[in-house]
């Protein structure tokens, strides 16, 4: 039983990342009808925002420390980060330690801006073009963004440590009444799961309980009629694109302690996220979230040693297998609606 629960938990963090990316993809697809192959790149930009935040916090000035001498007897030059000189040593070190969570402050405005620029600058011109063209131009954009990031940050993965308070594991087994130590789970992954749950809830609440969200949902259902009612639906949809970008960016930034970001990280996640979206049902937000967690958990079950002994390597192809089976039996995906994307 405890092994079973451990596998479900293991699936949750990957599932959360899939769910967040798929949620953004579905938002874009549902509102603007565009298949965004550059969504993985947005995830990556988010991740590199965390790297940038880390570097900003580590910016330092060189101060000559008269009390210390180097081996030649000259005063020692000490690099003092600006945050330490501004907020004091202890507070500065704490701020540096928390660079990944703090990067959220950077991610949200940057991603909103990136999303807005992408939609207004490029995607806007592709609404009337065939879907194949939209796929192709966003695919090209993904290559370009990846290469630009590579030019600035290099091709190697960059370590971005989590706050030291979260290093280690949480003994969930003891909480749930199993033997202590039987279900030990890394703290940061737990945080990531709760973080994404909050974001998903926030997005749904935004769409469900605000007037803005209501208009957007109406626009998703029937864009033309909403337009005829005198509502500038395009502007709202642009904002939704920014929101989707921000969701992807947040997913990327918070994932950095789990997987060191490199310029291709987005591509790796993108293919799986597409599979997630298709399994969930194109255009269905709950479907995307459900499928994200479902596939994440399935993948973690498939990577159990008992399963792998039975069918070696099943963990790497299970998602694709499930996707193919689901598409063949339920062509609209798990929660797809009739009439959406059925050309």
């Amino acid at each position, binding site marked *: 039983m405890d092994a079973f629960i451990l596998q479900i938990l293991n699936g949750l963090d990957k599932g959360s990342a899939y769910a967040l990316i798929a949620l953004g993809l579905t938002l874009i697809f549902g509102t603007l009808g565009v298949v965004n192959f550059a969504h993985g790149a947005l995830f990556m930009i988010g991740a590199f925002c965390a790297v940038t935040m880390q570097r900003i916090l580590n910016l330092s000035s060189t101060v000559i420390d008269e009390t210390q001498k180097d081996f030649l007897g000259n005063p020692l030059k000490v690099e003092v980060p600006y945050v330490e000189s501004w907020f004091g040593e202890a507070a500065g070190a704490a701020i540096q330690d928390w660079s990944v969570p703090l990067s959220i402050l950077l991610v949200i405005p940057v991603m909103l801006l990136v999303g807005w620029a992408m939609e207004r600058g490029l995607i806007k011109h592709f609404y009337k073009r065939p879907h194949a063209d939209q796929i192709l131009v966003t695919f*090209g954009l*993904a290559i370009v963004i990846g290469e630009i990031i590579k030019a600035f940050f290099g091709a190697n993965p960059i370590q971005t440590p989590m706050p030291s308070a979260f290093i280690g594991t949480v003994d969930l087994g003891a909480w749930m009444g199993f033997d202590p130590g039987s279900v030990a789970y890394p703290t940061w992954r737990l945080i990531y799961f709760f973080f994404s749950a909050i974001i998903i809830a926030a997005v749904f609440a935004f769409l469900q309980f605000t007037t803005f969200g209501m208009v957007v949902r109406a626009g998703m259902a029937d864009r033309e009629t909403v337009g005829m009612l005198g509502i500038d639906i395009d502007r709202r949809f642009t904002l939704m694109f920014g929101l989707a970008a921000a969701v992807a960016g947040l997913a990327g930034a918070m994932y950095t302690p789990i997987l060191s970001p490199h310029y291709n990280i987005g591509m790796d996640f993108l293919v799986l996220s597409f599979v997630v979206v298709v399994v969930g049902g194109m255009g269905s937000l709950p479907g995307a979230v459900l499928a994200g967690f479902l596939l994440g958990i399935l993948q973690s079950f498939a990577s159990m040693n008992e399963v792998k002994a039975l069918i070696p*390597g099943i963990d790497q*192809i299970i998602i694709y297998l499930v996707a193919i089976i689901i598409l063949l039996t339920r062509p609209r995906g798990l929660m797809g609606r009739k009439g959406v*994307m059925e050309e």
Partner: protein
Amino acid sequence: MLGLNSRDFRLFLIVCALCLFAPIILNPFPVASSLGESFNAGYPALMQRFVIFGLLVIGFNILFGLTGYLSFGHAAFLGVGSFAAVWMFKLLSYNVVPAIILSVIVAGLFSVVIGYVALRRSGIYFSILTLAFAQMMYSIAFSDLVGKLFGTIVTNGETGLQVYNDDPQILLGQGDPTVPHLFGLEMNSAYTWKIGGWEFVFQNGYYLSALFMVLGFYLSIRIFRSPFGMMLRAIKSNQTRMSYTGLDTKPYMLAAFVISGMYAGLAGGLLAAMDPLTGAERMFWTASGEIVVMAILGGVGTLVGPVLGAGVIKYLENIVSKINDSILHNWFAFMPDWMDNLLVTIIHPFIGKGWHLTLGLLFMAVVIFLPGGLMQLGEKFTALFRRKKTDDAKTGATNPAE
């Protein structure tokens, strides 16, 4: 001639001639000159890539160009073909004939299965399904899951598959060459013709690949002009209407998919025949993306476009990634220093390792401004030229009624 109308026949002849004289045409500069070092492309390894990828994209164009179904997993068939060919080398002998035949057959079988499943959906779903299939096959090959299942080696995982001395090679005779050969004609042996400062290399492997590409090109012309091709185009313009007329479009689609998969398998087999090793990275989805890029750049749905696109991409890849800062400084040596340095700093991100950035930008520019690819650019130019000459002549291009 050969069942082609005169215009197509002329096109076919031009392609034949280009393939035949490529070693000369692509080496316009003397070997020792700096221009020759940077821009000559007439060496066998690169020319092989031109024709093999040309063949691959011709096949892809039969699917995407005629039916409009965008497959994002075509590299999988290329990889399957390569693996099949290398296995033939391992089991039988280094003769390329069984290798190439088997690579086409195996890729065909795979594409029947994948096509049957993927073609149940259209549009974006089809693209994503093919992408998922290709990624699955990549994962299988990369970790050699089939091999692990049976306790043997099939794709040899990360290392890649190649021929070892202790392989059975049951047909290998005493004096047979130990490199890929066509009944004794070694693929990598070449005749070098030196004249003045120029050097032209005529390689057997290149000419075999070129022969296959010419045959593939001929077949694609015939398909484009056949009733079958017409049917595929009809499916592209309105599949629903085709279904309403009582026609089952599925067999046609599947046939197109399998043909294009077999082209990819042939290309994979040829790649292995030129260099008898292969790895899973050939099947990665960015490789599939590259095929799409080539087709789009050249001009989807045209006859020569795909070959052109493959050639341009492979040429630029080779040239651009070879250029470095010192070569640039050489070129700009005539300018004042500050201008030279400025230009080099600006161009630096786009050359050498930055080739993919250039590729991405080029690709985006083509998709945005030239959906018809380089062929459309050519048409625009000729139209401009013609209008100046005869004011009344209308351009021959007809737009589909949509």
